[in-house]
């Protein structure tokens, strides 16, 4: 009986049987591997959560939260296993198109009565159907395990489904881009290199552009996120970190899953679109390249000459820029601007060497090192262009201040992210990011111009004196632009008052407005230079209302620059599974809070340090050989910020007479905090640590400075000769 006598159904059955047999090994290898990667860790995490809950007597709510978080971490959008899926995409592509590297396989497949398009389509269909079946089987098994452990809820299940779709898209993107690499190459090794190149190049290039900004621009901010396009690997990575951000934002609480998912989808929407777009683009490219792919291309490194040229030029540029950035990082500690010449020369040398190396690799022949000079020259020209654009700031990066009409809102980040919080996973930076929306942009932009000009003028200084800040512009076109600047100490106070006195600024900049201290066990500690007092089981709302009122009435630049902080309120909340700590600096004019503290008898009558309690003082001179006392306040500010001394001298004082003179000249207020200008108040050349007896029979240490021009002569003689 011939095949012509078989029914169409029989033929399909026979084909499927044959295909099934040939692909069986893939199922046998991939299915257990995927099961081990997805189901086993989930099982272990769930068992761990249960054991932990038993050992530490966790409540049912906490256990549920831990179990649901385990599900999200393994098969939800917090899952790092998306990397495994990407790897599978690469492996499947090599499995499906390995015949392109074997002459006997090519003879076999290309002589069969089918078209090249159908052959490619078939390979795509087999890979996709095979992997989809395996992934779905594994996901269903994992969901069943989660359900058995009672770790599922509607939102968690939706999160798992969304992540499954993202994993399939990522698989397809990696599969298609690797297929494109295989199509473009005639040898397996070069195809592997090409696949790595295609999957990572835009990501690497984007990171290099980010690195170049760091090298060349004084106002560069690390908050500026590189946004590579056509890079599924980076998209998947961003999807993973985006999920972490969303989970952190909502305290990883599964009951807030709807909010988490909404934030997550917003965070990663652009990346998911890029992943899909890249996959579609790669599919189209595969279609066109396959039409040009011939059996005789086997053994060639890169089958199309223009692709080989592009590969070499981009390879030279990318490695040279990477080399330049690495050299900068190595020398950044001893950086001076003449080293830019070294950078430029190094970049060009690396380019030439890479040009030779790429030729050797692509020809698999050492003698070919001198070939392709025109592409090397092209790469050199592009590199020089990039270098001079960045060195000369031809793109105007360091003077960029947007037009007021194009700005939706502005924000200002302090570079001290932890001042207010010692709280689990919370920082002041995140508070500002989520809360500051300054709509009155004119004074903000004016301040930005002054600060940008100042920062540029101090390009050579390692740390120009002033307040280091990050400006943020949320533009109406959806982009967010960040610039690091130093706001000069002599900036117009009226301008800064306009910036800092708006309600939007205060509520966005001072985190007390966002604090929800949801605990019944809240304690308050009030710390001054002289005393440390405790108030147990307080109502945090009462304190917060007083403090917020003070901030709204008194928080503005001019008063903060010239005023003092008398102490620091610390609130600790027992959150069952952790302790959150909130800190509130107390300004001397924060009358409502002071009244609150007085009401509970924890506000001290005097802030002077009690000499009787001081047993020893350690004083350190961090700038031996300098005498800040003889300089103006401005000079001191410049020296303090600009001169880094690796040397220091120190001495312990226990003599009562000396201690008396030291204590009488100590600044008993706090000089840190927002917009503080300390150089006219404190002698910053000397630091001291006082060992004091506390009220409980123990000892504590108080760190402080001398008042300006009040350093005792014997200290100078001891530590600065």
């Amino acid at each position: 009986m011939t095949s012509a006598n078989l029914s169409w159904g029989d033929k399909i059955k026979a084909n499927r049987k044959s295909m099934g047999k040939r692909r069986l090994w893939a199922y046998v290898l991939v299915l257990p591997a995927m099961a081990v990667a997805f189901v086993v860790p989930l099982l272990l995490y769930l068992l761990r959560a249960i054991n932990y809950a038993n050992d530490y007597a966790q409540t049912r709510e906490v256990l549920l939260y831990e179990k649901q978080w385990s599900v999200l971490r393994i098969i939800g959008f917090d899952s790092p296993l998306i990397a495994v899926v990407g790897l599978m995409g690469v492996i499947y592509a090599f499995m499906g198109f390995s015949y392109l590297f074997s002459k006997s396989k090519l003879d076999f497949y290309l002589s069969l009565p089918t078209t090249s398009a159908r052959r490619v389509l078939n390979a795509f269909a087999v890979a996709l159907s095979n992997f989809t079946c395996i992934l779905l089987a594994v996901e269903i098994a994992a969901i069943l395990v989660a359900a058995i452990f009672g770790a599922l809820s509607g939102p968690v299940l939706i999160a798992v489904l969304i992540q499954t779709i993202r994993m399939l898209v990522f698989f397809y993107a990696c599969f298609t881009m690797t297929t494109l690499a295989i199509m473009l190459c005639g040898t397996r090794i070069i195809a592997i290199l090409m696949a790595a190149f295609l999957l990572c190049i835009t990501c690497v290039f984007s990171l290099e552009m980010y690195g170049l900004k760091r090298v060349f621009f004084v106002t560069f901010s690390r908050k500026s996120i590189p946004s590579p396009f056509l890079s599924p690997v980076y998209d998947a990575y961003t999807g993973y970190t985006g999920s972490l951000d969303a989970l952190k934002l909502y305290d990883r609480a599964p009951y807030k899953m709807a909010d988490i998912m909404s934030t997550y989808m917003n965070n990663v929407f652009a990346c998911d679109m890029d992943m899909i777009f890249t996959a579609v683009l790669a599919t189209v490219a595969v279609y066109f390249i396959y039409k040009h792919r011939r059996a005789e291309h086997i053994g060639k490194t890169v089958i199309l000459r223009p692709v080989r040229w592009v590969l070499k030029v981009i390879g030279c540029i990318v490695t040279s820029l990477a080399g330049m950035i690495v050299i900068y990082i190595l020398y950044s500690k001893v950086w001076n601007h003449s080293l830019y010449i070294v950078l430029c020369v190094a970049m060009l040398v690396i380019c030439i060497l890479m040009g030779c190396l790429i030729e050797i690799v692509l020809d698999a022949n050492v003698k070919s090192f001198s070939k392709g000079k025109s592409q090397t020259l092209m790469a050199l020209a592009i590199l020089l262009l990039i270098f001079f654009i960045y060195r000369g700031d031809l793109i105007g990066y360091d003077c960029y201040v947007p037009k007021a009409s194009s700005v939706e809102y502005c924000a200002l980040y302090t570079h001290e992210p932890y001042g207010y919080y010692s709280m689990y996973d919370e920082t002041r930076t995140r508070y500002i990011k989520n809360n500051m929306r300054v709509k009155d942009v004119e004074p903000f932009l004016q301040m930005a111009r002054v600060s940008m000009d100042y920062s540029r003028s101090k390009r050579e200084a390692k740390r120009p004196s002033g307040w280091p800040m990050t400006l943020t512009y949320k533009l109406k076109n959806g982009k967010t632009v960040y610039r690091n600047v130093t706001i000069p100490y002599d900036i117009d106070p009226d301008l800064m008052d306009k910036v800092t006195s708006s309600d939007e600024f205060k509520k966005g900049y001072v985190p007390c407005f966002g604090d929800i201290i949801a605990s019944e066990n809240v304690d308050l500690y009030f710390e001054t230079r002289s005393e440390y007092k405790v108030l147990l089981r307080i109502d945090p709302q009462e304190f917060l209302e007083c403090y917020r009122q003070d901030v709204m009435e008194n928080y503005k630049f001019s008063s903060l620059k010239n005023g003092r902080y008398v102490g620091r309120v610390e609130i600790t909340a027992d959150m069952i599974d952790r302790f959150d700590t909130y800190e509130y600096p107390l300004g001397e004019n924060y009358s409502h809070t002071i009244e609150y503290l007085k009401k509970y008898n924890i506000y001290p009558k005097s802030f002077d340090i009690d000499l009787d309690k001081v047993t020893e003082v350690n004083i350190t001179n961090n700038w031996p050989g300098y005498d800040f006392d003889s300089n103006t306040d401005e000079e001191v500010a410049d020296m303090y910020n600009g001169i880094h001394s690796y040397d220091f001298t120190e001495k312990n004082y226990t003599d009562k007479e000396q201690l008396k003179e030291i204590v009488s000249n100590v600044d008993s207020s706090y000089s840190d905090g927002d917009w503080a200008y300390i150089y006219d108040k404190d002698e910053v050349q000397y630091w001291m640590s006082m060992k004091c007896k506390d009220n409980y029979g123990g000892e504590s240490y108080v760190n402080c400075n001398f008042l300006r021009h009040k350093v005792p002569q014997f200290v100078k003689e001891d530590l600065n000769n």
Partner: protein
Amino acid sequence: MIELIELNKSFDDIKAVNNVSLKISDGEVFGLVGTNGAGKSTILRTIAGVYKPDSGIVCVDNRPVYDNPDVKKDIFYISDEQYFFPNCTPEDLADFYGTVYDNFDKQRFFDMLNGFMLDKSRKVNTFSKGMKKQVSILLGLCAGTKYMLCDETFDGLDPVVRQGVKSLFAAEMSDREFTPVIASHNLRELEDICDHVGLIHLGGVILSEDVSDMKVCMQKVQCVFASEEDESKALEGLDVLIHDKRGRLHTITVRGEREHVEKSFKRGEMIFFEVLALTLEEIFISETEVVGYDIRKFIMG
């Protein structure tokens, strides 16, 4: 009919097929003979649709072959390096080819395997080189295609199997439309199977003729002339391909029919004269020597 018209194929700077024009008529066994690197495999791959011609036309029954599944259904190609799926058995291959070729006759394939004492359930990768070739040939015969392209397929088959395959070819040709194209440089093997031979050298066709005509049109003569004057008289006007002289004994390969050659030689007086039978190999050596492929260059440098 397979028709190659001014076919060209290059691999970078190397011209593998140079302006080849050939006609392979239906119902004959066509032998493609050539020196190493002459372009035989390239021509077969082009006919099989593996390679796309740089220029020129390859037509199978007046239809272009490249990327044309309808035409490829009529062609079964056995490469010089056959590929079989990993761990497959002849039975698996029959299943596969059954889905690829409409007329594949699985039962006949199994019967033939029995006839050649090949186990249908044994893994092909455990077969010897010759057994693998047998499997390929049997698959090709049972695929029911009109054309079967065999690249060096007969090399390595033992004489009994070779004879068996020849018989199968003959039977197949008498039963249905079947045209095997066999590329080889083992001319002794082709001599008694091919009806027509195409001689390829350096990518070009030196000659394409029926084997019987080839032998008729070329003669090998061994003789001893009485004098140099007799030699001149005898050879005057003859198309001498090779003239070898050892002592007084001349061995001369001449183009022309036997009767004409004998008549010409009789113009001079000879002490000894004999016309020898030419093998296909000798014809091949003679023809290629004319175009510069001289075996003596390899030996003597």
